[in-house]
């Protein structure tokens, strides 16, 4: 079975680790979610178990073995040099990755899938870049910044792991710059400014991906079996001026084309941090070919343009909401109580939490034509089908089950099927069985 059931998320307390664990909790096919990190989780989690451990491979190994983990998802990668020092970034990105890889290999290891969240900084930015990087292209030049070097080294370690462990499916996701209402990056900081600085004389091509799509892509590769590297980037590459226009902000070409680095240092004193990777993008831009992942059946929910527009909506609302949202604080005792106390009525608590933590409704998607898509009105919820996990079954599987059902159940099932997926083959098969029963020729 390709699908993952017992998942270890490394870097649970990072934004992506937390978001992924929340998404996996909704998936009934996943039995166990264990998260490790050296810091407390930053998001509210229901059934994910948190173990505070940094990336010591001996300890990780014991967790992996004890919990019979079959899938490891590594979301720890630091891709923004403004968030930490280059030394601790290196420690985390390269040494940490090697430790995690060491924990998933070795005799008797049950890990069958490793997902590594990488970054499009792997490709860097250079003058002679292709307009669209595909996964098979390497960098045209050696890495220039410490973060890029880390990412290249980490991916090299992951590749080596993949070569030595042919039984393990190793997926690398190279995510382009992420935007969204929730995630904080250097780019969201840049776009939050009242006017957006640019390099004079440059209008680079920019591609983004929505935060929900990154989480979706991580969940997608857990469901399917995809070996190799995949770019994660939304459809559409915009010019930077287009991005700024969509945000409704003026642009400020104040960075000089020559000596940009020096100007960035001056701006840093003034409180605006432009990491070197971003300076490269502001000069040359970058586009990724996202078709390889799309060909595996993944569907992006937002295009780059829609992603930017979502951010613009958020930025307009942000000053009003400021300080209104409470942040989550992790309390070990409370979490332990909720998970393990015999007095917690698990189902009830879970149900309550699920309704509370329901993801905000997806807004009406806008198609290319600009017309809002006619989303089918949510129909009155059909009754529970008489077969467990009915929605997960394929048509053939359903048909093979029909013989074992009572006539009343069959009728209910037929109605349910008509209301939900209305597969022709299933409905006719049910009707055929019912007809046979009616004439008394039960086999």
């Amino acid at each position, binding site marked *: 079975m390709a699908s993952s059931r017992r998942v270890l998320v490394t870097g649970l307390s990072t934004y992506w680790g937390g978001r992924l664990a929340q998404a996996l909790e909704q998936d009934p096919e996943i039995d166990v979610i264990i998260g490790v990190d050296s810091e407390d989780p930053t998001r509210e989690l229901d059934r994910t178990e948190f173990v505070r451990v940094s990336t010591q491979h001996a300890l990780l190994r014991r967790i992996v073995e004890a919990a019979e983990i079959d899938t490891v998802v590594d979301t720890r990668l630091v891709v923004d040099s403004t968030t930490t020092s280059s030394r601790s970034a290196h420690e985390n990105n390269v040494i940490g990755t090697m430790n995690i890889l060491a924990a998933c290999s070795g005799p008797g290891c049950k890990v069958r899938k490793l997902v590594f969240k990488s970054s499009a900084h792997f490709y860097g930015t250079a003058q002679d870049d292709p307009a669209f990087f595909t996964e098979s292209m390497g960098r045209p030049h050696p890495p220039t910044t410490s973060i890029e070097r880390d990412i290249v080294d980490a991916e090299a370690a992951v590749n080596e792991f993949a070569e030595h462990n042919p039984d393990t499916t190793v997926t690398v996701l190279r995510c382009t710059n992420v935007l969204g209402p929730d995630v904080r990056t250097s780019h969201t900081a840049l776009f939050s400014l009242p006017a957006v600085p640019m390099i004079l004389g440059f209008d680079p091509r920019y591609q983004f991906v929505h935060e929900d799509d990154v989480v979706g892509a991580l969940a997608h590769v857990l469901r399917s079996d995809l070996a190799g590297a995949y770019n994660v980037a939304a459809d559409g590459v915009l010019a930077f001026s287009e991005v700024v226009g969509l945000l409704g902000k003026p642009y400020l070409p104040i960075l000089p084309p020559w000596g940009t680095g020096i100007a960035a240092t001056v701006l840093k004193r003034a409180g605006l941090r432009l990491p070197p990777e971003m300076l490269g993008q502001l000069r040359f831009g970058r586009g990724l070919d996202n078709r390889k992942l799309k060909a595996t059946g993944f569907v992006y929910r937002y*295009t780059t343009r829609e992603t930017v527009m979502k951010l613009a909506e958020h930025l307009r609302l942000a000053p009003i909401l400021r300080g209104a949202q409470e942040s989550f604080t992790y309390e070990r005792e409370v979490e332990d109580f909720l998970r393990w106390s015999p007095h917690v009525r698990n189902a009830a608590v879970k149900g309550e939490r699920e309704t509370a933590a329901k993801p905000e409704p997806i807004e009406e998607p806008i198609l290319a034509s600009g017309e809002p898509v006619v989303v089918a009105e949510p129909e009155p919820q059909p009754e529970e089908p008489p077969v467990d996990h009915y929605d997960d079954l394929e048509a053939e599987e359903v048909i093979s089950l029909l013989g074992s059902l009572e006539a009343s159940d069959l009728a209910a099932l037929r109605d349910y099927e008509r209301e939900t997926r209305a597969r022709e083959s299933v409905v006719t098969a049910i009707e055929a069985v019912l007809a046979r029963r009616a004439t008394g020729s039960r086999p």
Partner: protein
Amino acid sequence: MTGTIAAMAERARTSLRPEGAAGTDNGVDGRNLPVPHEGDLRRHLAGVEPERRLNDWGRSERVENALDKLLADFFYRYWFRCEVEGIENVPATGGAMLVSNHSGALPPDAAMISKAVKEEHPHPRPVNITVEHFFKGYPGFSMLIPKLGCVAAHPANVHRLLYDEEQLVLVFPEGRKGTEKLYKNRYRLRRFGRGGFVEAAMRARAPIVPVCVVGAEEAAPIFAHLSPLQKMTGLIYAPLTPTFPHFGLLGMLGYLPAKFHIRFLDPIYFDEDNLDEDKSLVQTVAHDVRARIQENLFEMLEERESVWF
């Protein structure tokens, strides 16, 4: 003129999202989709968002139209009085590579070929002009050049345009060597690179249409190269032309009113896969294309009675 961006989307592409996928979980729907073979990802190309005025390469309908009205029209009709023959050799659909001789300090030939396809062809199509990587790194150029439909001459870019997007690509295999050549060497083709353009066309199985341009050499003659100025400005070259450098950068547009003749030759088709792996064939075809352009150039020059009329 219909919108360039819309014209580029002529080919039926997948819409941005498969129908009905909007509300579902990412990827669940597509789980049963057959995975097409590695090479053919064309149906997964991003759809066109009609609200946008730029395409994914950075080509801007607005800037292009403005410049077309402001300059290209004037130069095409009244200044160079372009005469075009063999326009029917440019395919109306599918990818094709236009290969031309190249000259002029700020080469007017690219713009005129592109304008000729737009004006004379029964199915006007946008032409993507390949340019040096240099332009992406030079302030000002970097901003303007992609908006006019210029694309860096990277093999991956050419392949994507020809094969995946099935567009017209204009290539100058002489590259910089062509535009640098002095007036005294006019119409004598330089080396045609290393045949990379033929390989790209073969890989994409797109026909090559050789193009000859007469007039551009006289319109923007280069008498000498000013290497100190070149070093100072960091430009790829600093030529001495009738109007540059003494009239400043705009002097680059100071073309003399030479009469332009543009001739599109019969296309060369590549009907087999993996032709590009045969290096000797690649070189032979490159040589052949070069010879045909050179031959036709001399023929056109023989027939030309005056440089100006």
